[in-house]
């Protein structure tokens, strides 16, 4: 098989085209939102939101049945936003350390989800899709949801960009400028939650964190300004989605894993070669 054939062949299958569209848009979206996750050190929180969706999905399966994908999406979205707000609320109280609070919510919700879903017959399949995603099962309606909600997230990031950057870089400045820092913090948490839900079907919960932080961290190694970091991260996210899906198609590897492995490969390449923070750059400058 020639290179061109290898590139063109997946396009003979509509499910592959839909999968490619989903993987690349999710890759790009996650990297842009992930830039804030990386810079604010919110990785654990992103992971927690992803895992905490399970009881919501279980609720959807129990009430609407697993065939009703649209209902499952809304259940997941509602749960994720609630969890994001809940974590924000607990961590503001300072009763417990933030990572402890997140850990408790994370573990509690995940256990509740498993308990609920274990009452459903044939739950193992649901669980596997939840954990590892099912990018080849993406429907046209799913693509519309990804586009609509992903677009809304990006739009909000753009509208509140300068405030979100200030709140993330120097919260004290934001407070002395009397910006409503708490509102912006919650906004950011909710944007992460929506991103997680939108990306759920593509990479699954288990690898969600990777999509949020790996392309963004790679971009962090080479960028000097935040818009640059977001653009490079988005490009890497899109490339990882496309290349990963191709490798998965030709080598019959699980698609989510293959996407993440490509993203990780980019990261190590940048770690080695980045002129700003790379290992080689360090060696040269002595």
């Amino acid at each position, binding site marked *: 098989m020639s290179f061109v054939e290898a590139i063109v062949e997946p396009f003979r299958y509509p499910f592959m085209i839909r999968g490619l569209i989903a993987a690349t848009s999710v890759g790009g979206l996650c990297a842009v939102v992930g830039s804030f996750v990386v810079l604010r050190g919110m990785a654990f929180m992103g992971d927690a939101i992803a895992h905490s969706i399970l009881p919501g999905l279980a609720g959807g399966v129990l009430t609407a049945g697993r065939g009703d994908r649209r209902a499952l999406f809304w259940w997941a979205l509602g749960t994720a936003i609630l969890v994001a707000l809940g974590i924000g609320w607990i961590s503001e109280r300072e009763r417990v350390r933030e990572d402890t609070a997140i850990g408790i919510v994370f573990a509690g919700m995940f256990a509740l989800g498993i308990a609920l879903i274990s009452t459903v017959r044939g739950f193992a399949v649901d669980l596997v899709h939840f954990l590892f995603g099912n990018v080849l099962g993406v429907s046209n309606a799913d693509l519309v949801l990804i586009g609509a909600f992903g677009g809304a997230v990006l739009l909000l990031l753009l509208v509140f960009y300068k405030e979100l950057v200030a709140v993330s870089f120097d919260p004290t*400045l934001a407070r002395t400028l009397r910006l409503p820092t708490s509102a912006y913090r919650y906004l950011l948490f909710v944007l992460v939650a929506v991103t997680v839900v939108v990306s759920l079907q593509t990479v699954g919960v288990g690898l969600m964190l990777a999509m949020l932080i790996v392309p963004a961290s790679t971009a962090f190694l080479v960028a000097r300004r935040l818009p640059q970091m977001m653009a490079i991260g988005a490009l890497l996210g899109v490339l990882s989605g496309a290349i990963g899906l191709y490798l998965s198609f030709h080598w019959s590897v699980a698609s989510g894993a293959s996407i993440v492995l490509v993203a990780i490969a980019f990261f190590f390449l940048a770690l080695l070669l980045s002129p700003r923070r790379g290992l080689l750059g360090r060696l040269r400058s002595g």
Partner: protein
Amino acid sequence: MTNRESRKRQGGSRRSPFGRRARAVHLADAPAVAVSGLSVTLGGRTALTGVTFELAAGAQLAVVGPNGAGKTTLLRTLAGLVPPSSGEVRVHGHGPSGHICIAYVPQRSRIDWRFPVTVHDVVMMGRIQRIGPFRRAGASDRRIVREALAAVELTDLAHRQIEELSGGQQQRMFLARALAQEADLALLDEPLAGLDLHSRNEVLKLIAGLRDRSVSAIVALHDLGIAAASFDEVLLLNRRMIGHGPARAVFSEANLREAYGSCLHVVEGESGTFVVHDTACGGGDDELR
């Protein structure tokens, strides 16, 4: 300055869900800062008590005291970031939390220097509230940022990522941000910490230059000599206010011993009395424990 003029200086407030209450209007004859009977409790412990002083508009005050004396707490309270547990803080006649004219410059160690922003970006952040939500920086904002960068001689480094600056340059960047914010009161937390002599002098010169812009300044410092030489007034602190006024009156042997305890050494030299204090020493903290 009349109320209307000062309102104009503050810029009209734009109301929106993300731009909450109206800003405080400066009272014409009020001092820049008036603090009376201030106490602050942090985590159930008294961090600061018995602080009373006034600072005239445009004047410069150095806050000195050993580590853990509550210098940072005082500055944060003046900025409206920490509520007093008793007593009152007035900035230009109003409680501090309504003001957007207070520039707070944190210790450099509190900042994530790897954050991907340039010097220009950071200085522009000082203008966010004046630009307002849903808007981008306009030509006048860019001009003000340019002037602020020029005033601290950072124009050439405007597009550097902030980690690439020296300590002195980083401190000058924050002063530029205070200028861009059009602050009337600058609160600087240990701006000289970790700087070499040359950078120290540059930063001190810029702080002194705030007078020409009638910006009042309150600066936390370690160095008693600099506090005495470069500031109108000093405030000696060790969890409670020990003295406030001109350095010559405040830095008496009794006051200094009270503030610094065993860390203080009074040396009789040929040309007079020297007071040496060990900044690495725990200071009055030990006395209190």
